[in-house]
Protein backbone atom coordinates (compact mmCIF):
# COMPACT_ATOMS: atom_id res chain seq x y z
CA UNK A 1 0.00 0.00 0.00
CA UNK A 2 1.71 3.19 -1.23
CA UNK A 3 0.75 6.21 0.84
CA UNK A 4 1.61 9.83 0.08
CA UNK A 5 1.03 12.85 2.30
CA UNK A 6 0.47 16.02 0.31
CA UNK A 7 1.38 19.17 2.24
CA UNK A 8 0.42 22.37 0.44
CA UNK A 9 2.52 25.28 1.66
CA UNK A 10 2.34 28.98 0.95
CA UNK A 11 4.78 31.06 2.99
CA UNK A 12 5.07 28.43 5.73
CA UNK A 13 8.84 28.44 6.34
CA UNK A 14 8.30 28.76 10.11
CA UNK A 15 5.73 26.04 10.66
CA UNK A 16 6.91 23.56 8.03
CA UNK A 17 9.78 21.95 10.02
CA UNK A 18 7.42 21.12 12.90
CA UNK A 19 4.80 19.72 10.55
CA UNK A 20 7.28 17.49 8.72
CA UNK A 21 8.85 16.27 11.97
CA UNK A 22 5.40 15.44 13.33
CA UNK A 23 4.59 13.48 10.15
CA UNK A 24 7.91 11.60 10.13
CA UNK A 25 7.36 10.57 13.75
CA UNK A 26 3.79 9.36 13.36
CA UNK A 27 3.50 8.19 9.75
CA UNK A 28 6.99 6.85 8.94
CA UNK A 29 5.79 4.49 6.20
CA UNK A 30 4.33 7.29 4.06
CA UNK A 31 6.07 9.48 1.49
CA UNK A 32 5.84 13.20 2.16
CA UNK A 33 5.34 15.68 -0.67
CA UNK A 34 5.44 19.42 -0.07
CA UNK A 35 3.78 21.51 -2.77
CA UNK A 36 5.25 24.98 -2.61
CA UNK A 37 2.59 27.26 -4.03
CA UNK A 38 4.89 30.04 -5.21
CA UNK A 39 5.87 31.16 -1.71
CA UNK A 40 7.73 34.42 -1.33
CA UNK A 41 9.66 33.22 1.69
CA UNK A 42 12.13 30.33 1.78
CA UNK A 43 9.50 27.58 2.09
CA UNK A 44 11.01 25.68 -0.84
CA UNK A 45 14.55 25.66 0.56
CA UNK A 46 13.32 24.74 4.05
CA UNK A 47 11.36 21.82 2.59
CA UNK A 48 14.34 20.58 0.54
CA UNK A 49 16.62 20.80 3.58
CA UNK A 50 14.13 18.64 5.48
CA UNK A 51 14.73 15.94 2.87
CA UNK A 52 11.15 15.55 1.67
CA UNK A 53 9.96 15.59 -1.92
CA UNK A 54 9.15 19.09 -3.15
CA UNK A 55 7.04 20.30 -6.05
CA UNK A 56 7.75 23.97 -6.72
CA UNK A 57 5.07 25.85 -8.60
CA UNK A 58 6.47 28.75 -10.67
CA UNK A 59 3.84 31.13 -9.28
CA UNK A 60 0.96 31.12 -6.80
CA UNK A 61 -1.97 29.02 -8.04
CA UNK A 62 -4.05 29.08 -4.85
CA UNK A 63 -4.83 26.12 -2.64
CA UNK A 64 -6.93 24.32 -5.28
CA UNK A 65 -4.30 24.40 -8.00
CA UNK A 66 -1.55 23.46 -5.54
CA UNK A 67 -3.49 20.55 -4.09
CA UNK A 68 -4.29 19.26 -7.56
CA UNK A 69 -0.59 19.30 -8.42
CA UNK A 70 -0.07 16.92 -5.50
CA UNK A 71 -2.88 14.67 -6.67
CA UNK A 72 -1.46 14.59 -10.18
CA UNK A 73 1.89 13.52 -8.73
CA UNK A 74 0.15 10.79 -6.71
CA UNK A 75 -1.76 9.65 -9.78
CA UNK A 76 1.36 9.39 -11.98
CA UNK A 77 3.44 7.62 -9.39
CA UNK A 78 0.89 4.95 -8.56
CA UNK A 79 -0.04 5.86 -5.00
CA UNK A 80 -2.98 4.01 -3.45
CA UNK A 81 -3.77 6.56 -0.76
CA UNK A 82 -3.22 10.31 -0.68
CA UNK A 83 -3.54 12.35 2.50
CA UNK A 84 -4.08 16.10 2.49
CA UNK A 85 -2.30 17.68 5.40
CA UNK A 86 -1.99 21.45 5.89
CA UNK A 87 1.46 23.01 6.13
CA UNK A 88 0.42 25.52 8.80
CA UNK A 89 0.52 23.12 11.72
CA UNK A 90 -3.17 22.88 12.54
CA UNK A 91 -3.46 19.19 11.66
CA UNK A 92 -2.18 16.52 14.02
CA UNK A 93 -0.09 13.73 12.47
CA UNK A 94 -1.11 11.10 15.00
CA UNK A 95 -4.67 11.37 13.65
CA UNK A 96 -3.65 10.23 10.16
CA UNK A 97 -3.99 6.61 11.19
CA UNK A 98 -7.69 7.00 11.99
CA UNK A 99 -8.38 8.38 8.50
CA UNK A 100 -6.35 5.69 6.74
CA UNK A 101 -7.98 2.94 8.80
CA UNK A 102 -11.46 3.95 7.76
CA UNK A 103 -10.35 4.20 4.13
CA UNK A 104 -8.79 0.75 4.22
CA UNK A 105 -11.93 -0.76 5.65
CA UNK A 106 -13.52 0.30 2.37
CA UNK A 107 -16.23 2.32 4.08
CA UNK A 108 -15.63 5.40 1.94
CA UNK A 109 -13.67 6.68 -1.04
CA UNK A 110 -12.64 9.80 0.85
CA UNK A 111 -12.40 10.27 4.61
CA UNK A 112 -12.57 13.75 6.12
CA UNK A 113 -11.18 14.56 9.54
CA UNK A 114 -13.90 16.46 11.41
CA UNK A 115 -13.41 18.85 14.32
CA UNK A 116 -17.08 18.74 15.23
CA UNK A 117 -17.92 15.06 15.55
CA UNK A 118 -16.63 14.87 19.09
CA UNK A 119 -18.62 17.00 21.48
CA UNK A 120 -17.33 19.94 23.44
CA UNK A 121 -13.73 20.10 22.30
CA UNK A 122 -14.07 22.93 19.85
CA UNK A 123 -15.82 26.14 20.88
CA UNK A 124 -16.27 28.46 17.93
CA UNK A 125 -17.70 31.98 18.11
CA UNK A 126 -21.37 32.57 17.35
CA UNK A 127 -20.86 33.65 13.74
CA UNK A 128 -18.46 30.85 13.07
CA UNK A 129 -21.00 28.44 14.50
CA UNK A 130 -23.69 29.88 12.24
CA UNK A 131 -21.47 29.53 9.18
CA UNK A 132 -20.55 25.98 10.07
CA UNK A 133 -24.23 25.16 10.59
CA UNK A 134 -25.27 26.64 7.23
CA UNK A 135 -22.53 24.79 5.38
CA UNK A 136 -23.17 21.47 6.99
CA UNK A 137 -26.96 21.77 6.55
CA UNK A 138 -26.73 22.67 2.86
CA UNK A 139 -24.07 20.06 2.16
CA UNK A 140 -25.86 17.35 4.11
CA UNK A 141 -28.98 17.99 2.02
CA UNK A 142 -27.05 17.84 -1.25
CA UNK A 143 -24.98 14.80 -0.32
CA UNK A 144 -27.87 12.95 1.27
CA UNK A 145 -25.78 12.18 4.36
CA UNK A 146 -24.71 14.02 7.47
CA UNK A 147 -21.44 15.92 7.15
CA UNK A 148 -20.20 18.07 10.01
CA UNK A 149 -16.88 19.61 8.95
CA UNK A 150 -17.20 20.61 5.31
CA UNK A 151 -14.24 23.00 5.28
CA UNK A 152 -11.74 20.59 6.79
CA UNK A 153 -8.61 20.23 4.68
CA UNK A 154 -7.51 17.11 6.53
CA UNK A 155 -8.49 14.22 4.25
CA UNK A 156 -7.50 10.79 3.04
CA UNK A 157 -8.38 9.71 -0.50
CA UNK A 158 -8.26 6.34 -2.22
CA UNK A 159 -7.05 5.63 -5.75
CA UNK A 160 -10.41 6.39 -7.37
CA UNK A 161 -10.51 9.83 -5.78
CA UNK A 162 -6.83 10.44 -6.62
CA UNK A 163 -7.61 9.79 -10.27
CA UNK A 164 -10.71 11.94 -10.14
CA UNK A 165 -8.97 14.89 -8.45
CA UNK A 166 -6.01 14.77 -10.82
CA UNK A 167 -8.50 15.41 -13.62
CA UNK A 168 -10.74 17.96 -11.93
CA UNK A 169 -10.31 19.85 -8.71
CA UNK A 170 -12.05 23.13 -7.80
CA UNK A 171 -9.90 26.23 -7.56
CA UNK A 172 -10.68 28.96 -5.06
CA UNK A 173 -12.08 27.38 -1.89
CA UNK A 174 -11.96 23.74 -2.88
CA UNK A 175 -12.87 21.89 0.33
CA UNK A 176 -16.64 22.31 0.21
CA UNK A 177 -16.95 22.15 -3.56
CA UNK A 178 -14.85 19.03 -3.92
CA UNK A 179 -17.28 17.09 -1.73
CA UNK A 180 -20.13 17.98 -4.08
CA UNK A 181 -18.09 17.01 -7.14
CA UNK A 182 -17.14 13.68 -5.58
CA UNK A 183 -20.72 12.94 -4.62
CA UNK A 184 -21.87 13.65 -8.16
CA UNK A 185 -19.18 11.33 -9.48
CA UNK A 186 -20.67 8.58 -7.35
CA UNK A 187 -18.01 8.44 -4.62
CA UNK A 188 -18.78 7.92 -0.97
CA UNK A 189 -17.68 10.29 1.77
CA UNK A 190 -16.85 9.39 5.35
CA UNK A 191 -15.99 11.41 8.44
CA UNK A 192 -13.75 10.64 11.37
CA UNK A 193 -13.48 12.78 14.52
CA UNK A 194 -10.12 14.52 14.90
CA UNK A 195 -8.55 17.16 17.08
CA UNK A 196 -6.99 20.20 15.45
CA UNK A 197 -4.53 22.71 16.85
CA UNK A 198 -4.75 26.45 16.70
CA UNK A 199 -2.33 27.92 14.23
CA UNK A 200 1.20 28.16 15.57
CA UNK A 201 2.65 30.64 13.08
CA UNK A 202 1.22 33.27 10.74
CA UNK A 203 -2.45 34.08 10.50
CA UNK A 204 -5.41 32.27 8.99
CA UNK A 205 -6.52 33.48 5.58
CA UNK A 206 -10.07 33.69 6.93
CA UNK A 207 -10.87 36.94 8.76
CA UNK A 208 -14.34 37.81 10.11
CA UNK A 209 -15.09 40.21 7.25
CA UNK A 210 -13.96 37.74 4.65
CA UNK A 211 -15.91 34.81 6.05
CA UNK A 212 -19.30 36.15 4.95
CA UNK A 213 -17.92 36.76 1.47
CA UNK A 214 -16.29 33.34 1.57
CA UNK A 215 -19.56 31.67 2.49
CA UNK A 216 -21.60 33.33 -0.23
CA UNK A 217 -18.97 32.56 -2.82
CA UNK A 218 -18.68 28.92 -1.84
CA UNK A 219 -22.45 28.40 -1.72
CA UNK A 220 -22.74 30.02 -5.15
CA UNK A 221 -20.00 27.77 -6.51
CA UNK A 222 -21.75 24.74 -5.05
CA UNK A 223 -25.04 25.65 -6.73
CA UNK A 224 -23.26 26.28 -10.02
CA UNK A 225 -21.71 22.83 -9.67
CA UNK A 226 -25.17 21.38 -9.33
CA UNK A 227 -26.20 23.07 -12.59
CA UNK A 228 -23.18 21.82 -14.52
CA UNK A 229 -23.46 18.85 -16.80
Amino acid sequence: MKIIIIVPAYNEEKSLPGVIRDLCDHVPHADILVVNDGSRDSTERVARDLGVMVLGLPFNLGIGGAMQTGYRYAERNGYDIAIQFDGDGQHVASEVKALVDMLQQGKADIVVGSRFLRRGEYRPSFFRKLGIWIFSTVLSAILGMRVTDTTSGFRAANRRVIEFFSRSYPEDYPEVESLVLLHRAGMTIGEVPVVMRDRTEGSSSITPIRSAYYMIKVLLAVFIDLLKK
Partner: protein
Amino acid sequence: MDILKALAIAGSAVLLFLVLELIRRGRLKERYSLLWLFSSIVLLILSLSRSLLEFFSRLVGIYYPPSLLFLIAFVFLLLITLHFSAVISGLSDKNKRLAQELALLRQEMDEAKRLHANAQ
Protein backbone atom coordinates in the same frame (compact mmCIF):
# COMPACT_ATOMS: atom_id res chain seq x y z
CA MET B 1 -28.84 65.07 -39.26
CA ASP B 2 -26.19 65.11 -41.97
CA ILE B 3 -23.46 65.76 -39.44
CA LEU B 4 -24.68 62.80 -37.41
CA LYS B 5 -24.69 60.59 -40.49
CA ALA B 6 -21.19 61.71 -41.42
CA LEU B 7 -20.02 61.00 -37.88
CA ALA B 8 -21.57 57.54 -37.89
CA ILE B 9 -20.04 56.70 -41.25
CA ALA B 10 -16.64 58.03 -40.25
CA GLY B 11 -16.76 56.19 -36.91
CA SER B 12 -17.65 52.80 -38.32
CA ALA B 13 -15.27 53.22 -41.27
CA VAL B 14 -12.39 54.00 -38.92
CA LEU B 15 -13.32 50.97 -36.80
CA LEU B 16 -13.40 48.71 -39.85
CA PHE B 17 -10.09 50.11 -41.06
CA LEU B 18 -8.45 49.55 -37.64
CA VAL B 19 -9.71 45.98 -37.43
CA LEU B 20 -8.53 45.17 -40.96
CA GLU B 21 -5.17 46.81 -40.34
CA LEU B 22 -4.64 44.82 -37.11
CA ILE B 23 -5.48 41.59 -38.91
CA ARG B 24 -3.19 42.48 -41.81
CA ARG B 25 -0.28 43.10 -39.46
CA GLY B 26 -0.95 39.89 -37.60
CA ARG B 27 -1.70 41.73 -34.35
CA LEU B 28 -5.22 40.33 -34.18
CA LYS B 29 -5.93 36.65 -34.75
CA GLU B 30 -8.72 35.93 -37.20
CA ARG B 31 -10.47 33.87 -34.55
CA TYR B 32 -10.89 36.92 -32.31
CA SER B 33 -11.50 39.39 -35.11
CA LEU B 34 -14.65 37.86 -36.58
CA LEU B 35 -17.02 39.56 -34.16
CA TRP B 36 -15.22 42.88 -34.57
CA LEU B 37 -15.23 42.60 -38.34
CA PHE B 38 -18.89 41.66 -38.45
CA SER B 39 -19.98 44.42 -36.08
CA SER B 40 -18.04 47.17 -37.86
CA ILE B 41 -19.45 46.09 -41.26
CA VAL B 42 -23.02 46.05 -39.96
CA LEU B 43 -22.56 49.49 -38.37
CA LEU B 44 -21.06 50.88 -41.57
CA ILE B 45 -23.90 49.59 -43.76
CA LEU B 46 -26.56 50.98 -41.43
CA SER B 47 -24.77 54.34 -41.23
CA LEU B 48 -24.60 54.56 -45.03
CA SER B 49 -28.18 53.62 -45.76
CA ARG B 50 -30.76 55.78 -44.06
CA SER B 51 -33.66 53.69 -45.43
CA LEU B 52 -32.23 50.44 -44.09
CA LEU B 53 -31.68 52.05 -40.68
CA GLU B 54 -35.27 53.34 -40.63
CA PHE B 55 -36.63 49.98 -41.74
CA PHE B 56 -34.94 48.07 -38.92
CA SER B 57 -35.80 50.77 -36.38
CA ARG B 58 -39.49 50.52 -37.24
CA LEU B 59 -39.24 46.75 -37.05
CA VAL B 60 -38.18 46.81 -33.39
CA GLY B 61 -40.18 49.94 -32.47
CA ILE B 62 -37.41 52.52 -32.15
CA TYR B 63 -38.64 56.08 -32.86
CA TYR B 64 -35.29 57.74 -33.28
CA PRO B 65 -33.42 55.62 -35.88
CA PRO B 66 -29.84 56.59 -34.91
CA SER B 67 -30.34 54.97 -31.50
CA LEU B 68 -30.47 51.67 -33.34
CA LEU B 69 -26.78 52.17 -34.03
CA PHE B 70 -26.14 52.47 -30.30
CA LEU B 71 -28.21 49.41 -29.59
CA ILE B 72 -26.34 47.32 -32.16
CA ALA B 73 -22.96 48.56 -30.96
CA PHE B 74 -23.96 47.76 -27.37
CA VAL B 75 -25.13 44.24 -28.21
CA PHE B 76 -21.94 43.53 -30.13
CA LEU B 77 -19.83 44.81 -27.24
CA LEU B 78 -21.69 42.51 -24.86
CA LEU B 79 -21.07 39.54 -27.14
CA ILE B 80 -17.41 40.44 -27.57
CA THR B 81 -16.77 40.79 -23.82
CA LEU B 82 -18.63 37.56 -23.11
CA HIS B 83 -16.53 35.84 -25.74
CA PHE B 84 -13.41 37.24 -24.09
CA SER B 85 -14.49 35.98 -20.66
CA ALA B 86 -14.86 32.50 -22.10
CA VAL B 87 -11.46 32.77 -23.81
CA ILE B 88 -9.82 33.99 -20.59
CA SER B 89 -11.35 31.12 -18.62
CA GLY B 90 -9.87 28.66 -21.08
CA LEU B 91 -6.50 30.39 -20.98
CA SER B 92 -6.32 30.47 -17.19
CA ASP B 93 -7.09 26.76 -17.12
CA LYS B 94 -4.31 26.06 -19.59
CA ASN B 95 -2.01 28.35 -17.62
CA LYS B 96 -2.71 26.35 -14.45
CA ARG B 97 -2.03 23.06 -16.23
CA LEU B 98 1.25 24.39 -17.55
CA ALA B 99 2.38 25.55 -14.10
CA GLN B 100 1.50 22.16 -12.60
CA GLU B 101 3.25 20.31 -15.40
CA LEU B 102 6.33 22.48 -14.92
CA ALA B 103 6.46 21.68 -11.20
CA LEU B 104 6.05 17.95 -11.88
CA LEU B 105 8.73 17.93 -14.59
CA ARG B 106 11.17 19.89 -12.44
CA GLN B 107 10.75 17.38 -9.65
CA GLU B 108 11.28 14.50 -12.09
CA MET B 109 14.45 16.15 -13.39
CA ASP B 110 15.83 16.72 -9.88
CA GLU B 111 15.09 13.10 -9.06
CA ALA B 112 16.84 11.85 -12.20
CA LYS B 113 19.86 14.05 -11.48
CA ARG B 114 20.05 12.76 -7.94
CA LEU B 115 19.88 9.12 -9.08
CA HIS B 116 22.54 9.78 -11.69
CA ALA B 117 24.84 11.38 -9.14
CA ASN B 118 24.36 8.47 -6.75
CA ALA B 119 25.15 5.92 -9.48
CA GLN B 120 28.52 7.49 -10.17
